[in-house]
């Protein structure tokens, strides 16, 4: 494990996708966090998601 890949002993820089209480708690600990305004792919249609993944190969 090369040192620069190892997350231990690096400053955490976090991207949050989902529940918004997590970034709140991270900010309270002084951690840099950015939240993604996420919505489900294909309007939430799981059949479409399957097709999409097939096309993405």
């Amino acid at each position, binding site marked *: 494990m090369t040192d620069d890949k190892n997350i231990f002993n690096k400053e955490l820089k976090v991207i949050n996708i989902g529940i918004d209480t997590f970034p709140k708690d991270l900010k309270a600990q002084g951690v840099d966090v950015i939240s993604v305004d996420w919505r489900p*792919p294909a309007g939430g249609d799981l059949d*479409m998601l399957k097709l999409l993944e097939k096309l993405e190969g």
Partner: protein
Amino acid sequence: MFEEANQQAIKAMKNAQPILVDVEPASKAISGMKKNLILHAGPPIEWNQMCGPLRGAVLGALVFEELADNLKEAEAIIESEEIEFSPCHEKGAVGPMTGVVSHSMPVFVVDNIANGNRSFSTINEGLGKVLRFGAFDEEVIKKLKWIEKTLGPSLKKALAQTDGINLNGIISRALHMGDECHNRNIASSSLFFKMLVPFLLDVNLETYLLQEISAFMAENDHFFLNLSMAACKVTMDSAHGIDNSTIITAMTRNGTEFGIRVSTLGDEWFTAPASTVEGLYFPGYTAEDANPDIGDSSIAETRGLGGFAMAASPAIVRFVGGTPADAIGYTREMMEITVATDNNFTIPVLGFEGIPLGIDLLKIMDTGILPVINTGIAHRNPGIGQIGAGVVRPSMECFKDALVKLSQRV
């Protein structure tokens, strides 16, 4: 697998050079145009599915063409199936709102000199009671005749004095002046007018004609809309039909349905019911009066202008109760579903970043984000006109259908 093809499409779009070269009657300019053929905005549609304004415009066009003496006769010849309909898009044309183009109407001819393809659009009639909003009374017909017999030919003469007018040049400057080139066209219309006037003065028109023509153009803040639409059409057409490209090459509505085309999926339309626009209404009107979304003008967004370039035109965002920061947010959001940016068209407030370019079907499906379109709202009854403006998004349905088709092809 699609990346390379999409880059090819992007290249075609970036290299496009739409030049306004001529004004000609539709009968001469548009291949396949016929006396009994009426072109309209949006995907294909039958007479009995057409919304009020579109029907009004069709009837008015038939009277203008002297195929019928009055509206009753016009309806009769339609019922007897003597009239054919086709989307403007399928004939290389685009039209705002009802987008009706008929045989004798003069059209702008726009050449993409980088690619050799061509597009057409009518001359914008102005505001108020116009065919574009489904009005069909005497006043409307009279103006259409004036456009046919006076304005069109005069503009043709003026253009003949030029080497052609570079439309992208006007659009890119207008973006720096607060236009997004769909709902706000005043800067581009002013720039065009400024460019054209010296040539207009050069063709020895009688003074009263010059007065008529310049008054007509000067008082129409949306004169350039039809030209920017034609420029976007000719650009998108040059990216259409590229094998394995998932770029959306057309988005359009006929007041009943919303339709898209995808580069690799050829001429097939993928449609869904047209949405209701969310927006601001002029005093006296409410959402109950509104016609569903209509017009070929979303070719602007398809090319990365209009709603996609909202960051260049913050005032527009107030139509949905937003702030200037929201305008920037919309453009950034659209960058999530486009493949590249076009730095031929930069947005000052974004540090002169280029407009989002190349709507990717797969990115729409991946992110769940739908394209945003700035648009005017027409009254559902023919002939009343624009009653408001706002923002609309197509439904996910047509993109899903396209994805299914794509996965069957592959």
